[in-house]
């Protein structure tokens, strides 16, 4: 059985690849840079003896990638999981993004997932034990003055997964959604953080462990659940003064 992982080469995506390969899953890995993918492909095959194929897609630029994904999945062992640890941020995403940059952010963070789920959903519905896993962000808990479009995309993604879970409620793949707090990745290094970073490897372990469980929406680490709840309940006159 194979898993398709979008956003495979960095941070959480990479941790998921290694965890799933260690658990003997064949992989179809998708990322934007062929060089990273080639290195990962051979590394995963050599270390774990699994079959790995890769597709280089820059979701921010390309629109026509469905056929390439289909072809990659068709040549792999039966698809068992779709995992979407994909995401991108822009440092100047503070409410004044030009339309092209905003569209690209939405493409990477939201539409890439929607576009990838659609062609495979019908086959996954007929396959016992299949799972679709999405990864949101605590940034989507409540809009704020930083990462404006990114947060909106992640909130859209959360809503999409809620719907998807409903679609698949009466027979179909399990649909899981992780709301992820700060992770210790290259992109988070050096940024001011209010809470400690969690290891992407720990999250990858958790995802692999719970792959067959109907867990719905999960916060990782757990303490982000009350934090996000508190953020949502914070009265506007207080919230508007908060800087984070």
């Amino acid at each position, binding site marked *: 059985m194979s898993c398709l992982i979008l956003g495979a080469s960095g941070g959480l995506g990479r941790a998921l690849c290694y965890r799933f390969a260690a658990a003997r899953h064949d992989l179809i890995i998708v990322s934007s840079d062929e060089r990273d993918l080639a290195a990962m492909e051979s590394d995963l095959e050599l270390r774990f003896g699994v079959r790995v194929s890769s597709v280089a897609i820059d979701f921010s630029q390309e629109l026509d990638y469905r056929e390439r994904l289909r072809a990659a999945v068709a040549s792999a062992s039966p698809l068992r999981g779709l995992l979407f640890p994909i995401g*991108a941020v*822009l440092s100047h995403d503070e409410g004044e993004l030009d339309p092209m940059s905003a569209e690209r952010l939405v493409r990477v963070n939201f539409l890439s997932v929607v576009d990838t789920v659609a062609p495979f959903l019908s086959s996954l519905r007929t396959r016992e034990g299949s799972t679709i896993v999405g990864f949101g962000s605590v940034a989507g808990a409540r809009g704020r003055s930083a990462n404006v479009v990114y947060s909106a995309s992640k909130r859209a993604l959360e809503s999409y997964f809620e719907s998807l879970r409903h679609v698949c409620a009466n027979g179909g793949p399990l649909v899981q959604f992780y709301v992820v707090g700060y992770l210790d990745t290259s992109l988070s290094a050096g940024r001011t953080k209010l809470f400690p970073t969690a290891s992407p490897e720990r999250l990858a372990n958790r995802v692999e462990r719970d792959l067959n469980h109907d867990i719905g929406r999960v916060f990782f680490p757990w303490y982000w659940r009350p934090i996000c709840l508190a953020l949502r309940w914070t009265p506007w006159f207080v919230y508007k003064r908060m800087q984070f």
Partner: protein
Amino acid sequence: MKLPTPPSETVELVSFDGGVTATCERWRPDRYRMIEASGGVSPRIARGGGYSYAAASFGARSLVLDMTRFDRVMSFDEDRRRTEVQAGTTLETVLSITGPRNLMLSVQPGYPQITIGGCIAANVHGKNPFLEGTFAHQVESLTLFHPRYGTLEISRRSSPDLFHLTCGGLGLTGVILSATLRLQAVPGFSTSVERTEIGSLSEGLHAARSLTEGSAFAYTWHDGVPHRSSFGRGFVYRGRITPGKPYPTARRRYRRIDAATRRNFPLSLLRDSTARLLTWGFWATERFKRRTIDMPLFDAIFPFARRSEYFLLFGRRGLAEAQVIVPDAQIEGFLGELQALLLRERPGSVMISMKLFRGEPRLLCFEGSGVCVTIDFARSSATTKFLGVFDEMCVTAGALPNLIKDSRIPLEVVRRCYPGYEEFRDRIQTHDPERLFRSELSQRLGL
């Protein structure tokens, strides 16, 4: 989409010997385009596992590019006995891929978490440099990134000058991204280690000379605590690979230690009387072991994986190590003088080790023919004072000090000991006129 350049994080880094500490900006790229995004004109230096005793991978207000996430095995060709790995790949990972096919790197330094990029930049040596040379000998080609030139594919044939400048170039030619390495067939993964007791440094020298040929390795260990009755006694260890034993599917775990965790134990237990007691304890324990011991090849290649406690015993303040290649013609006199000096000055020396070395000195590589003498000290003001005198001894004897094993070696000593110093400095200046790649070590050596 172009990734935004992530901010760096501020960290305190320390050389493995504890001698140099600096607060640095660190960046941990895990994708090619992140390295490429590190353009600009600010100084930077690549860092691997951080096991260099000198501050070769940080300092001089340089951005530290931590390459440990660049650790993928890119290819492995069993028939051609080649593997291509990214620079942050550890020796342990390479062995775990090649070992099951009875192949391995012939030259490996003593700790499995050392990265390939670090091995190349420092041109390290292994257990038997007399027979196998240094790490550069097994590097076939490498890719190097420098903002001025982009990504360069370099090999012995296509660009010999830059290749030889990079192997042993202390990371000053650019960021090593990956390397293609030659592998050697290994008949088995068990080693028979024979121990012979010796009473003095000169006895150890003769034993090492007679045992090195025909062995996988031969080195000596001597009690280095400056006390007349026990100084110099020790053992010579001779290892031979036992054919037939397959690569183990499971291995005993070992303690992970790095430059930061090495300082976890606050006090030094290798001082004066405790050093004498512990060294005696080691000597006595070894003495009562069987003369020939079979051990996994992993333990023989990476002795410090099983003995990492040794480094903890030096405490927070750390250790100082002097490692020099002394020409054969000078070694007898050098050892006599060293013994007299240690017993007279009584610095915090703990142990002395010797092995034979063979090679041609070039640029700033620790390579030459003679006897490699290593002395470990507990770090103290007496040690620093002693090492000043030791430097002069080395210059007089024409010895070559190992730059990455000594975090304090002064420029003047390097200039006098390394005939290739000026050439190295000039070639680095030509290759990188803006001097983008800098470390505390390069600054100290005026590079």
